[in-house]
């Protein structure tokens, strides 16, 4: 384990960090940048996770991001930097005389320098019922998990607090299908960030999304059965009652200074620090939301990043810098609602306003000026110019002639958008979602020779979230590379849109788009309901992105997937039951023979995938055919779908004198695990019991070949017009590994390939190396893909034939004529 009980007398000073959050780890990063190896670093975190982006909790709640996507420092990072992470263990005391901290388990670690980054605690209203189950705060991953444990479509949620955090929580729960009410004490929402006009527009926008907003509303109690029954509602002081299955309190935070106070450090509201971020004990520094600097506490990330730099300078004795509070801007992370504010946006008698309103487009901009300088800004509905305003505000230069046109943004001011982009300072924020500044982007372009928007995204995260600043990032590439910048224009999906497949998939995920109309609206489709090319693609992308949530759109399925059989040239259908690993039995064969006789099926053929095809079945007979096949235990073989088709096997070690592994059993296990999964194109598997490879595994999408030592895993092969042999992914030893690697590979393909792109061209496009990095070298990524696949399968593994054979309802009437006028 990660003990550090002994003080090892050595050259390195010992730095202990209490708090494994954004502030603490940013400071550690800054320290490592200044003086790598200077300290022997131990980090205590009360939460069990590695450091994650707390700002991204709302997208996590909304389902737009996964936990992996919001991790800032992976466990590998701690290891690579030789940092001892003690996660899930809170520190309970600091002995300043002995310079030792003690954790809740009694673990003791000595320090030369100590950094407090204990953050803040959410404020809990001291009202009756506040401790009931179902009443919670919104501060950590654990809180999100608790909320998701209760959240379900149709249930009700009440969010107490209409500030930034409360509204983001409300938005996330709303996207989860809950009926959400927001109870806010003040007359207008987000009064610390918005003036009344913008708050009004915000309230309208949220109401339009189905939220109920109660302003000037004071909570009286949280109601439920008995003393400690689960919450059922909220009563307001004016007597109104709002039902609730879930209550989220987001009414503010308090610096977490208890540990410092108990250790005798000077504290008021927070841990008091000087300009160097030092506490009243010179060996102890403090940073982030737990501190109080010059009477001020901080809760936004920008000033905390500044604190981290100052603290690192002083801890490393690299420079004698001091913290100077700067103006900060605020954005709301609610997709589709653009808002930004900064500075003194509520004017007084010494200020004047420049206001722009565009009611039709729901745009409101207010610039607050004092003595020809910009001191405050509010933008609602259009925040493209927010970075430029924020820059003007922080520079504090005289506006002069700019004043005339500045309300229309830098384009109007400079006349040329490229020129405006060029004139932005390096500190101007380009990407609001990820807080990426112009200087960081241009530096990354220069240092790493980046030439595409995707490369900038991967390196800096700029434009990686909502994508609204993509054109700015492109502009910077153009400025930097000049004619050397060749925009990669993705081939549009179809004539209905200018977006390529990858961009559409990305926007579905990041924009939490969950229906075909939502995608078409958000991505400005050029046709009212798409075409026969884009609709099946969108249906698959949505199905893959939102398993269990997205409702399959039958009318966007190609006929074969809608009818669960293959249409033939004469309009009849072919029916192929699943034969697990190519095995069958007398009972199954007898049932097939009976069905062929009973329905006068004209042709029967053995397929290339070791199954039996009944050809020429009339549409009207499909349901009855399936009923009879089902009765013998036969289920759909999905021979008609962009889905998992067959798992071909040889007889293997069970019968064959050359066989070294039981390939048939392996094939059956793979088929049982993967059947029913939808894919960008058809997917075929095979398992051979020895390198003679009788199952032809090396021309399959995922082929397994047994060896004396275990299994060789091959990927990306197909027969077809252009035969392609597989490439070797890796070698594994156990059946469990074959299963995990196979499912992880299929999941990666499902999530990243383009619709109608088989694994072979996909692999040629992304490269075997990429797939190996994801599946073979990165165990955590592989495990996550495996888990995602298994989760999606819980919704996919229902025999469609059984459902379709069931009877006459709206879903199954398609097999019969609407009327017979003969």
């Amino acid at each position, binding site marked *: 384990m990660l003990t550090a009980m002994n003080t090892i007398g050595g050259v390195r000073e010992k730095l202990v960090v209490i708090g494994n959050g954004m502030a603490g780890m940013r400071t550690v990063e800054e320290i490592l940048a200044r003086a790598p190896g200077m300290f022997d670093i131990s980090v205590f975190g009360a939460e069990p996770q590695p450091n994650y982006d707390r700002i991204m909790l709302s997208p996590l709640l909304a389902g737009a991001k996964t936990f992996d996507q919001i991790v800032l420092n992976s466990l590998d990072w701690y290891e690579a930097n030789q940092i001892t992470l003690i996660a899930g263990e809170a520190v309970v005391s600091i002995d300043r005389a002995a310079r030792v901290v003690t954790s809740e388990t009694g673990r003791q670690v000595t320090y030369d320098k100590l950094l407090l980054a204990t953050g803040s605690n959410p404020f809990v209203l001291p009202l009756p019922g506040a401790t009931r189950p179902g009443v919670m705060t919104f501060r950590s991953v654990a809180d999100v998990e608790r909320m998701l444990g209760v959240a379900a479509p149709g249930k009700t949620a009440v969010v107490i607090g209409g500030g930034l955090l409360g509204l983001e929580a409300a938005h996330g729960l709303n996207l989860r299908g809950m009926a959400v009410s927001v109870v806010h004490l003040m007359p207008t929402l987000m009064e610390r960030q918005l003036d009344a006009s913008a708050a009004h527009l915000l309230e309208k926008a949220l109401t339009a999304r189905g939220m109920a907003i109660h302003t000037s509303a004071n909570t009286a109690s949280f109601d439920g059965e008995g003393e400690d029954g689960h919450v059922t509602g909220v009563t307001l002081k004016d007597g109104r009652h709002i039902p609730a299955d879930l209550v989220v309190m987001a009414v503010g935070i308090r610096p977490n200074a208890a540990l410092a106070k108990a250790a005798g450090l000077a504290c008021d509201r927070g841990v008091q620090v000087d300009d160097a971020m030092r506490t009243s004990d010179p060996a102890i520094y403090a940073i982030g939301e737990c501190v109080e600097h010059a009477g001020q506490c901080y809760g936004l990330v920008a000033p905390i990043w500044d604190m981290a730099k100052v603290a690192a300078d002083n801890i490393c004795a690299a420079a004698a810098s001091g913290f100077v509070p700067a103006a900060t801007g605020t954005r709301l992370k609610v997709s589709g609602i653009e808002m930004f504010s900064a500075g003194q946006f509520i004017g007084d008698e010494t200020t004047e306003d420049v206001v722009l309103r565009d009611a039709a487009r729901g745009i409101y901009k207010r610039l607050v000026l004092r003595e020809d300088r910009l001191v405050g800004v509010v933008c609602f509905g259009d925040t493209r110019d927010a970075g430029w305003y924020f820059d003007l505000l922080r520079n504090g230069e005289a506006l002069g002639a700019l004043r005339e046109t500045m309300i229309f943004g830098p384009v109007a001011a400079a006349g040329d958008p490229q020129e405006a982009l060029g004139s932005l300072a390096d500190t101007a924020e380009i990407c609001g979602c990820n807080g990426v500044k112009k200087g960081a982007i241009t530096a990354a372009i220069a240092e790493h020779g980046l030439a595409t928007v995707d490369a900038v995204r991967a390196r800096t995260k700029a434009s990686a979230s909502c994508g609204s600043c993509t054109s700015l990032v492109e502009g910077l590439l153009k400025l930097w590379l000049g004619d050397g910048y060749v925009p990669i224009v993705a081939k549009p999906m179809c004539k209905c849109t200018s977006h390529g497949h990858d961009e559409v998939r990305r926007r579905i995920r990041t924009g939490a788009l969950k229906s075909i109309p939502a995608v078409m609206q958000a991505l400005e489709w050029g*046709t*009212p*309901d*798409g*075409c*026969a090319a884009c*609709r*099946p693609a969108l249906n698959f992308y949505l199905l893959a992105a939102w398993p269990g949530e997205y409702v399959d759109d*039958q*009318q*966007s399925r*190609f*006929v*074969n997937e*809608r*009818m669960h059989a293959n*249409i033939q*040239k004469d*309009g009849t259908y072919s029916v192929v039951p699943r034969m697990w690993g190519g095995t069958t039995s007398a009972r199954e064969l007898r049932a097939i023979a009976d069905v062929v006789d009973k329905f006068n099926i004209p042709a029967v053929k053995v397929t290339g995938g070791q199954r039996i095809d009944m050809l020429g079945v009339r549409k009207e007979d499909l349901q009855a055919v399936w009923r009879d096949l089902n009765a013998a235990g036969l289920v759909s073989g999905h021979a008609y779908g962009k889905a998992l088709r067959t798992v071909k096997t040889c007889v293997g070690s069970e019968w064959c004198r050359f066989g070294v592994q039981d390939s048939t059993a392996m094939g059956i296990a793979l088929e049982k695990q993967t059947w029913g999964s939808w894919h960008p194109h058809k997917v075929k598997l095979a398992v051979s019991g020895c390198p003679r490879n009788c199952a032809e595994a090396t021309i399959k999408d995922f082929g397994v070949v047994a060896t004396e030592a275990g299994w060789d895993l091959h990927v990306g092969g197909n027969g077809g017009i252009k035969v392609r042999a597989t490439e070797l992914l890796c070698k594994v030893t156990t059946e469990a590994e074959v299963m995990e690697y196979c499912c992880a590979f299929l999941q990666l393909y499902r999530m990243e390939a383009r619709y109608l792109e088989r694994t072979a061209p996909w692999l040629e496009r992304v490269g075997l190396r990429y797939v190996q990095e994801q599946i073979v070298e990165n165990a955590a990524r592989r495990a996550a893909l495996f888990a995602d696949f298994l989760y999606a399968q819980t919704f996919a593994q229902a025999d469609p034939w059984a459902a379709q054979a069931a009877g006459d309802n*709206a879903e199954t*009437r*398609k097999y019969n*004529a*609407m*009327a*017979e*006028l*003969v």
Partner: protein
Amino acid sequence: MMDGMRRVENFVDIGALEDIPRLGARSVKSPRGDIAVFRTADDSVYALQDRCPHKQGPLSQGIVHGNAVTCPLHGWVIGLTDGQALGLDKGCTPTFAVKVEHGRVLLALGGAAPGNLAQSAQL
């Protein structure tokens, strides 16, 4: 309505509008062969012979988008209003008069001819 009354003898009730999925179709068996009855996103209804002019594919099984259907066999796109193939393909499918009254779909078998006899009607 008088105009509709005069023609009612030609129209046969083939079922409820709700029996046809939106952006979908159902087929009707008739002495004139199978007829595909389509319902668009805005609840307009059209009827075509259920045979693609290309290789006789069942148009009722295609994907409906806008005022067109894509044939399931080889992807020809056929206009629902006039039965004409769109784009570079050349061909035409006979159309039938169809209308919706009080939520019922009424189809007229007589007078089927290529071209503009098809009617669409709102609910």
